[in-house]
């Protein structure tokens, strides 16, 4: 009887995963030449596009993680302090972007960011802040993409922090208040330390997610303007499916994956040691 179960599993996994993994070791797919693997790796290190894509990805992920964690923690604490009804409302509202289709929402933001017709510049105009280029400006494009990405995912992290916050016994706060602690100290000495494992886990999840970002970049900017929002996933896609340089794309994918895995391991180790 167990055999039946096992066979069900083993049928799919080898087919899908193992099969593909054996493929990627080749790295010559696309051109039927057995070009040395070294060739590709050296191309990558000399390619400025790759390096800027990588840099963009790192910058993006960095701010993505920080903004997500800070805002989601803030919103979670806010929700916690609100009355039940309002709290639930905010909870739903913050999760709404998460549920909405990334493609659809990216178009919405594209429209919001539109320099002449977009709502954002319009409203800023009222306060007297000049029209910005947002997605069309090489300096602001990446920031804009980060904004959209964070907006979309904040709710997800908020929910998890909410759950985490609710496991902290109210007693701690009460006894702290009796001792005369200010809200800030409560946060610093009670909330933060107790949330550490949650925060750490969120950081890892957010980092991996940040590196993998693709959809919104594809819709919002396609890597432009001037390559300022070209991230590694966009680069892999472009190289592999548009330029059809499969071998090169595979190599890039491989490198990026190593980075992601390494980062995840490092972060995970750092967390475990804190405990």
């Amino acid at each position, binding site marked *: *009887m167990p055999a*039946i*179960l096992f066979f*069900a*599993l083993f049928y*799919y*996994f080898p087919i*899908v995963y193992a*099969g*593909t*993994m054996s*493929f990627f070791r080749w790295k010559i*797919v696309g051109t039927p030449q057995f070009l040395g693997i070294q060739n590709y790796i050296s191309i990558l290190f000399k390619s400025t596009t790759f390096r800027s894509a990588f840099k963009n990805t790192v910058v993006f992920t960095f701010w993505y993680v920080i903004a997500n964690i800070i805002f989601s923690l803030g*919103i979670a604490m*806010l929700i916690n*302090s609100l009355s039940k009804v*309002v709290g639930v409302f*905010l*909870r*739903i*509202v913050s*999760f*709404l*972007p998460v*549920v*909405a*289709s*990334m*493609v*659809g929402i990216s*178009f*919405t933001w594209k*429209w*919001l960011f539109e320099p002449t*017709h977009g709502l954002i510049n*319009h409203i800023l105009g009222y306060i007297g802040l000049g029209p910005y280029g947002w997605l069309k400006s090489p300096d602001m494009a990446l920031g804009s993409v980060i904004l959209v990405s964070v*907006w979309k995912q904040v709710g997800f992290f908020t*929910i*998890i922090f909410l*759950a*985490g916050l609710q*496991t902290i016994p109210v007693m701690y706060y009460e006894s702290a208040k009796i001792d005369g602690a200010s809200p800030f100290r409560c946060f610093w000495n009670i909330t933060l330390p107790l949330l550490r494992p949650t925060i750490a886990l969120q950081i890892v999840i957010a980092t*991996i997610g940040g*590196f*993998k970002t*693709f*959809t919104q970049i*594809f*819709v919002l900017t396609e890597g432009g303007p001037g390559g300022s929002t070209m991230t*590694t996933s966009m680069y*892999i*896609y472009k190289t592999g499916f548009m330029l059809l340089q499969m071998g090169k794309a*595979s190599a890039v*994918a*491989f490198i*990026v*994956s190593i980075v*992601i*895995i390494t980062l*995840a391991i490092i972060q995970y180790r750092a967390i475990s040691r804190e405990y």
Partner: protein
Amino acid sequence: MNKTVRIIILAFLTLICAVVLLVPFLWTALTALKPTPEVVKVPPTFLPENPTFENFSYSWRAAPFLLFYMNSLIVTVIITASVVLFSSMAGFALAKYQFRGKELVFFYFLGTMVIPFEIIMLPLFFFMNKFGLVDTYLGLILPSLITAFGIFMMRQFISTVPNDLLDAARIDGCKEFWIFYRIVIPLVKAAVATLVIFTFLANWDDFLWPLIIIESMKMQTIPLGLAMFASRFEMQAALTWNVQMAATLISIVPVLIVFVIMQRHIIEGISFTGLKG
């Protein structure tokens, strides 16, 4: 800090958050209702002066959104069912059975979870190509049919089922499969529900893989269809954001509605696993 000040601050913060989070949705709706001459106005208007539904009817006619919905639905439902089914079985096997090579299998699954999609997407495409699976339903769903995440999650929850219960059933002559179906599953219902939600949401909105594997119009899923449809408008020089917004609205509203209705369960499920995980 006295009570009133506190309330004011909280209200203010809540308002800001709500506004920031909701405005894009509202704006989508408002824009979708504006006729083209109004959309191109500078400075833009807030409320539509001449609200119209023509953008919706145009979008609906211009691109087979119903087809996209069907595709998305078929694909996502199949994937979700498969993932839940196989993850439960695998999780069950990993949690409750001892067999040779168990460690190996465990790490094998774990390994697949670590590998980002980016590596496998290219070779996967070749694989599909070789078998003529490009642009087919099978090609679309095959890679997503089982997830290590699902397996681990089910394993986690199934391992909380007391073994005595299972042994008692075995003594009574219950076959393994029935043990699985009749006892274990009902006990981990919450986990199953959560997995269903997770999987559904993730796959409904999947963009990269469908982008790679689907070519023809009639196979597009919602995210893909919307992207294709809307970017067509950007190519034409005219500013037709109202149509794009209408199309966007068509794409995202049903999911939003479902979410709002089921939100409690969804959110509970996620925080539930978020803590355990």
